[in-house]
């Protein structure tokens, strides 16, 4: 977002930034917490259900808390490029590959 970005889009950007990362990002100014919570919960829960339905084994291996944290990071850090719902799991795999590659590079640097 630049200074040329229209005002309404800067608001939208603040809106989705908060939904993606409610722990770090501020709630958009002038918006009631109770109402914003609806989006915070609905958007993440829908995505969580879509992803979880496709990876029962990974979920079991990682355990509930780690799985939840991983999907949260996926939503916070990954920019999904496909509008097709059945490709959401593929978006998740793209994200996993990215973080694995990143971690491997860091490990190799220390060898």
């Amino acid at each position, binding site marked *: 977002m630049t200074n040329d970005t229209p005002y*309404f889009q800067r608001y939208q950007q603040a809106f*989705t*930034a908060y939904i*993606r990362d409610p722990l770090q990002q501020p709630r958009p*100014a002038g*918006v*009631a917490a109770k109402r914003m919570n609806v989006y915070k919960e*609905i*958007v993440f829960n829908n995505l969580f259900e879509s992803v979880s339905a496709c990876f029962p084994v990974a979920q079991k291996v990682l355990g509930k808390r780690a799985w939840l944290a991983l999907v949260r990071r996926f939503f916070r850090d990954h920019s999904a490029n496909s509008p097709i*719902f059945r490709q959401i799991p593929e978006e998740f795999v793209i994200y996993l590959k990215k973080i694995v590659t990143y971690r491997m590079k860091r490990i190799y640097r220390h060898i």
Partner: protein
Amino acid sequence: MTTFNHAESTINGVGLGLKRELIPQIQAAFGQELISNINFVEIAPENWIEVGGKARKQLDWFVERYPIVCHGLCLSLGGLAPLNTAFLQQVKKFLTQYNIPLYTEHLSYSTDGYKGQQGYLYDLLPIPFTEEAVHYVAKRIRQTQDILGQRIAVENASFYVQAPISTMDELTFIKAVLTEADCLLHLDINNIYVNSVNFGFDAHEFLRGIPGERIVYSHVAGHYQQAPDLLIDTHGEDVIDPVWTLLEEAYQLFGAFPTLLERDNNIPPLPALIREVDKIATLQSKSQQHTSMTLQVHS
């Protein structure tokens, strides 16, 4: 009185949103009295584009037996990322392939252009109601219509947060977008009711302000009451009486336009859903009888 857009309503009567859970039941009941009021079926292209195997066979089965309409979820007309024209080409191909005459979308957004990509959030987020947003959305609707080579209809969305930066009300925004984009209206009766409770306005007054001549068809659905002043548009409950009343009033105002029942969650067995389908059909014929009586009185 009939003001809704007959010419571009290539569908009639009552429709049902197609959910995978319902498919075997509809197939089993096909040709029977039970489902005789289902006249058309609605699908989300995001669920059906380029499917294969069993899903493809199911889609073919419905295409052969029912008029189909496409109701999209992820075009993101108010989105921050550029309009996804590659996806629109896929939609165009899909509409042609299955001979689907109508494509509708929401007046909302589902992309934020995060990290220079589309950034799909897979949900319907509220566009702030400002002049700039009217022009922006209308331009993207026009662009969509140019790519598809046909007019689309946009649906009034439900929402839970009123943007403090909005400079106009929802009805003014919808009307301005429809005029500037010269597109059609997919009127969601439940969404009018949900928003009227969430933001404290008169649903009937809102309905009377709708440009009826742009309506191609409508939706009814149930919702979840989270608090007395907060309704969540879950499509997971039965349609409530105030929404039926609004639908009845809409038929009186604009004529008995085609209407589709949406049920996406907590789906009951088919016979229970059909009771609501039949109720729509009853209201439509009641309104048509009323209309013909009025015409007789005036002729």
